[in-house]
């Protein structure tokens, strides 16, 4: 009898196809098809056409892809992008976790205020942040002048600005608030009750972390990581202002190919190769994650 009730509600939800409301999505869908899907398709097609300097033409060719893949410059830049992307993602997630933890389990009256501050900092303008870090990290910026005044250094630290370090710092500044909020939201299931129940059942701290906290946090942490990785690896503005020579990334190159050099197929091909790399990273990461979580569950029984 109870199973009938269960089955009814379950299949009720599944079996009552209501298609008509979807009509409401039509305007948005049409807009995105026209101005998102179509441009991307055209862009993809461009990657297979011949370069005609700020234009493209037939014949169809794989030259652009070949050039993109064989160029040693691209390889260096790709490595830079990878480094910047992974570093930024890693730092934001690793730093973000204790902050989310603090918000969830330690904070009391200050929680709303800190949440507000963190969310507010997301709204600080992108360019303003880059500019701010250029000031702070510069040879006469905040850090160097402070260290100089304190007598700790004679020469300003050069690596602070116009380096991959500077790019990562600025990108972390940009993405940290977002990561903290995602992780904080992901901690929702970790209600006080759950942790106390686990402790009541004898779980020590380390066990608690491995068997309860990590599996629940793995998914939000992973999606935050991938999101930040993709956006920071593809960023082309931050490296321009803060990257110097060593900090040039693939995004900058793509932008220059398109606007500066006029080789549209190459820019397109590089873009799609980069996209492919992102998808690969996401797939590999998901795979690893699933493997880890599976083995976790098996061991616990």
């Amino acid at each position, binding site marked *: 009898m109870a199973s009938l009730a269960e089955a009814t509600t379950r299949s009720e939800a599944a079996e009552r196809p209501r298609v008509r409301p979807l009509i409401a999505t039509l305007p*948005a869908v049409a807009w995105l098809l026209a101005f998102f899907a179509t441009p991307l398709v055209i862009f993809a097609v461009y990657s297979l056409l011949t370069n005609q300097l700020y234009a493209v033409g037939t014949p169809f060719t794989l030259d652009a892809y070949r050039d993109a893949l064989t160029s040693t410059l691209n390889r260096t830049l790709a490595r830079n992008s990878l480094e910047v992307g992974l570093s930024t993602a890693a730092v934001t997630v690793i730093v973000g976790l204790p902050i989310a933890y603090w918000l969830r389990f330690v904070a009391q009256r200050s929680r709303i205020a800190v949440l507000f501050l963190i*969310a507010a900092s997301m709204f600080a303008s*992108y360019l303003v942040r880059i500019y701010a870090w250029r000031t702070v990290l510069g040879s006469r910026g905040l850090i160097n002048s402070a260290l100089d005044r304190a007598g700790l250094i004679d020469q300003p630290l050069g690596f602070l600005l116009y380096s991959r370090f500077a790019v990562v710092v600025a990108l972390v500044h940009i993405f940290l608030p977002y990561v903290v909020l995602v992780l904080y939201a992901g901690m929702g299931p970790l209600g006080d009750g759950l942790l106390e129940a686990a402790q009541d059942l004898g779980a020590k701290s380390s066990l608690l972390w491995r068997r309860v906290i990590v599996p629940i946090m793995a998914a939000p942490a992973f999606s935050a990581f991938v999101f930040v990785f993709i956006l920071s690896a593809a960023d082309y503005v931050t490296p321009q202002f803060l990257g110097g020579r060593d900090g040039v990334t693939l995004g900058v190159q793509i932008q220059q190919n398109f606007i500066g050099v006029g080789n549209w197929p190459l820019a*397109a091909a590089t873009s799609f190769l980069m996209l492919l790399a992102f998808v690969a990273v996401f797939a590999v990461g998901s795979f690893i994650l699933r493997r880890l979580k599976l083995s976790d569950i098996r061991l616990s029984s």
Partner: protein
Amino acid sequence: MQGRRAPVPTAITIGALLFLFVPLAIVVLFSFNSTGSLTFPFAGFSTRWYRQIIESAAFRDAVVNSAFVGGVVAVTTLMLGTLAAYGLTRASTKLRTPIAVLLFLPLTLPGLFLGLSLLVLFSRVEVNLSLGTVMIAHMVYVLPYYLLIAVAALQRLDPALEEAGADLGANTWLVFRRVTLPQVWPVLLAASLLAFALSFDEFIITFFVIGADSTLPLFIFSTLRRTVDPSVNAISSLLLVITLALFAIAFVLTLRGSKTAGLSIDAEPIGGTAR
């Protein structure tokens, strides 16, 4: 609920807050510097840079343009996004998945892609770049963010209320207008303010699809390349104030929206919240 003593996370949180706000504070600080220097020591207090940029016609044009674009984007996103969110949450069919994927996909692609592909589209159909093309691009960029909020808000509503409305004689449109909307309008308004802010501050995509006009971020960009004086700080500070003010309003609206519909925004209610 008790707070635990956890010195390390607390220290990291404080450090992070400093990390996030000190650089911005310095930008604001130096916008009031009486000399043209951007390095310590701070010379003296002056509003000359603000006066300088406010007098600049280019700056005023850029602000107006950004506001205009932002306004149009906010309004259109409100309309398209609310409809789409309604459709997504009220339909139950397998068709829903591909539509949702399409609508949320722009979130996953870096602005570089959106900007370049739109530029390609516009060149293909021989449309001149202008504020109009910027609006088109922003709407694509902003829509998924709006949807995230709107879908969550609509999903939290009690479906029984809509059934009650229908039972009492309201057709689909009336149910939406008299039952659904009154409960979610603060959140939707907050989401459209967010859309405005996102558009106002957008640079990465705008860079590719803008014509001769300038928006405020573009203006900052070009100023950054030309000059190295606190006028940039002044512009930046103004931009910060505007976007932070928008955020504060949206935040208050969201809190109020939760109360209207009887929901709670936190992951868990703070100890002591009466219900």
